[in-house]
């Protein structure tokens, strides 16, 4: 069983949602990323999403874009990100790591070479924001051949027929973008998320993670009631950029620990059990 599948199965058995923080690799500096990831894992992250810096992050809001720019100012490329994953794996054989980024850095490296190197570094899943299923058939097959999970987005505007198409290609988990808009936007409607998750689950047997708009313990717990995983990105990056670079691991870990504590304090979700019954 893959690391992603094992992690989700364990959380599901407990009736709890997994906690998945996102940071941009190389932010605030390349030599701190491994320490930030270790701090997040120590604070209770079940899996980690690592953003691959890109010069034109169209689907991201200002917070993630700033993180990308800080990493690019230090010349962090996809090869460097894979080296960081290799370094993380030296001390952590169990935490799933998902890369999230845009198509062009992968195509510049060559998709096949990327898949080989990602697998060898210890990556578990890959989410390419600008590869919708229509454009990702070959890439998804390539990832599968290297035992990497192709992860896809579902949005509030995705019609049912497309959810089916996504379900056929996706492995690991499906990432539901809970807002129209970019990463880091506000106004999360929990009832609407719950309604859409029910629709997604009619087609998708994989766990469903929810991200975009989760900023505090209250919104994390509200989403955890319904989702298999809670993904938090912009808010952690804000925590990192609010302090000195060398404090990034401690600040990110301390903030995530408060979310972990809140999730653990909530009763194991009956609805989470029910929805899988």
């Amino acid at each position, binding site marked *: 069983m893959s690391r992603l599948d094992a992690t989700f199965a364990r959380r599901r058995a407990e009736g709890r949602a997994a906690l998945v923080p996102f940071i941009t690799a190389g932010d605030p500096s390349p030599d701190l990323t491994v320490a930030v990831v270790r701090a997040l894992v120590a604070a209770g992250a079940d899996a980690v999403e690592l953003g691959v810096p890109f*010069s034109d992050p*169209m689907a991201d809001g*200002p917070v993630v*874009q700033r993180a990308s720019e800080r990493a690019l100012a230090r010349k962090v490329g*996809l090869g460097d990100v894979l080296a960081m994953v290799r370094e993380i794996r030296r001390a952590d054989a169990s935490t799933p790591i998902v890369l999230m980024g845009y198509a062009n850095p992968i195509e510049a490296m060559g998709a096949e070479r990327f898949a080989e190197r990602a697998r060898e570094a210890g990556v578990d899943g890959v989410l390419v924001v600008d*590869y919708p299923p229509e454009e990702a058939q070959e890439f998804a097959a390539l990832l599968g051949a290297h035992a990497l999970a192709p992860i896809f987005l579902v949005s509030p*505007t995705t019609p049912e027929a497309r959810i089916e198409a996504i379900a056929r290609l996706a492995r690991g988990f499906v990432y539901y973008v809970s807002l129209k*808009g970019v990463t880091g936007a506000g106004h999360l409607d929990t009832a609407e998320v719950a309604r859409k998750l029910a629709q997604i689950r009619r087609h998708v047997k994989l766990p469903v993670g929810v991200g975009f708009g989760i900023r505090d313990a209250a919104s994390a717990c509200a989403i955890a009631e319904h989702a298999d995983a809670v993904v938090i990105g912009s808010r952690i990056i804000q925590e990192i950029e609010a302090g000195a670079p060398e404090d990034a691991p401690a600040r990110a870990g301390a903030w995530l620990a408060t979310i972990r504590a809140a999730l653990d304090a909530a009763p194991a979700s009956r609805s989470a059990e029910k929805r899988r019954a």
Partner: protein
Amino acid sequence: MPLAEHPYDLPDARGHFGRYGGTFVAETLIQALDELAAQYARYQRDPDFVAEFERELKHYVGRPSPVYHAQRWSRRLGGAQIWLKREDLNHTGAHKVNNCIGQALLARRLGKPRVIAETGAGQHGVATATVAARYGMECVVYMGSEDVKRQAQNVFRMKLLGATVVPVDAGSRTLKDALNEAMRDWVTNVETTFYIIGTVAGPHPYPMMVRDFQSVIGRECLEQMPEAAGRQPDVVIACVGGGSNAMGIFHPYIGHAGVDLVGVEAEGEGLATGRHAASLTAGRPGVLHGNRTYLLQDDDGQIVETHSVSAGLDYPGVGPEHAYLKDSGLARYVTITDAQALEAFHDCCRTEGIIPALESSHALAYAAQLAPTLPQDRILLVNLSGRGDKDMNTVAERSGLRFYCRPECDPSMRTV
């Protein structure tokens, strides 16, 4: 008659021109693009829509634009005859308005009261603001903060026309960053908002749709050249940034026996300096802004900053259909430097009494290189895609002149 009917029938149903084009966007935009593609497929064959588009082009834009024989310049060059397609005579001063009218009419049919656009030099922003005023729509234009400074006059024009201009402070603060920001706006406000993309790039159906709206340029030439010049041209020449004016004049001529199609890219300060915008000539295929095409990028796949004296050509990508035309040999692509473009700019001003846009001056410069190498009975048709009024300050600065100075570049003129 439908907007585009042609034996060459690209793109395919998913917007691919061979290996280029496509729909490389986040899932959040797919539904809006699918809806747009379906609606466009319907309206491009709708006689009422086509008739309204043609009526607007005639009475509001002033089409057809003439073809004009640049006789004095041709004689001086002593070779092939240079003809100009006068898109500079359109309302708003460039070809951009053709496409804006098409998309705004579509936006109205889709019931979207708000339009957004990205702009570099400001020409597409002005054209969008113009049609938004014409049809009573809310208009927001995204523009890199660097471009807002460089193109103060066009910012003022957009505001006069009632548009909101949003300066974009991210990345290189130029066109590509404005495009990123417009995409973000669209993702967030997709139910009320129509995104009017200004060139033949972006996700499907934009490259096809913008080409179709612009191909009125080439269709007119097909009719006008036999009347005015006695036959079709031997070579059709157009500048290529994103490539909308070039696709507009090329498309009806693709596969037309005996007509060479030449796109002219901005070589800036020279290919060797790295300060240029020649994506097809010096770039590699990749994915940006929703499509696969030639891109100027570094070894890590990061998009690099570009340079051209002409803001409208200063873009690191190019429309995917140009990428296909290049690979298939249906068109060829050359480069012209800043200095060569400026020389052609001045020659055109002095010899023909026409002040061309710096973008179009790249096409003129290549025509001026090619003409003397060919016999006098050959015909070169250049798309004079816009007029140069907007470029007065750029040209003046290059010439060491100052017509006027913005407060931020001359502290002595700052009012306190």
